[in-house]
């Protein structure tokens, strides 16, 4: 695109993939869900 020849070309060409960043947060929830499942099982066992 034409703006890659401009004064802020470096900033524009280093734009992060924001969609990917948001998609990666799904992994965080999966991980915490697993942890809570483990906690639940451990508590049941202890109970």
């Amino acid at each position, binding site marked *: 695109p034409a*703006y890659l020849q401009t004064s802020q070309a470096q900033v*524009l060409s280093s734009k992060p993939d924001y969609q990917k960043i948001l998609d990666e*947060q799904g992994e965080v929830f999966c991980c915490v869900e697993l942890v809570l499942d483990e906690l639940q099982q*451990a508590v049941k066992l*202890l109970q």
Partner: protein
Amino acid sequence: SVNPMAYEAQFFGFTPQTCMLRVYIAFQDYLFETMLLVESVMLKKMDGFPDCKISPFELRKSTEKFLLFMKEHFDKLFSKMEEVLLQLVLNIPKNVLLPEDKVHEQYPDSKEQFQALQDEIHQLQEQYRAEASAGQALRAELEEQKVVQAELEKILQWFDGLENICRKYGTSNFKESFTFLTQNSKKLQDMLKDVEKKSK
């Protein structure tokens, strides 16, 4: 070759030759008209003399003779007058530049300069368009960032909420609680074994 005196025409609004021609035709017409007037006056006067033996034909011949003479001198004199006026009055000397043409003195290599300037301007316009696009793209990213920041902050708030629930139900530190519960259940298991042994 005929000098069209175009530069003089630019200044005066008419070509000097046209002006002189107009004057020549007008002067010539006045000469003819005045001669005709003279002739008609003489004819009228002759009518007042019944014994007059001069015919209108003879009078006309006299008029033509005088007119021919006058026309010859008129043409010579006018030609000299025209020469002087065209050279000294209705003329712009070669070293004189009219005020409206001063710009040509300032920019003598204007053709090359014109082309170079056009190229530079085109480039500047392209650069400006590119910067405008870049500005739009940057502002669009700012909007995107707002959305992403809001989502990430929501996740952190969710973590806070989770921890608040745990605190509400008495478990602020899961590690300690589990250690305590595990030790207690081990104690209970040991006590149960003890009780079973003693009852046997």
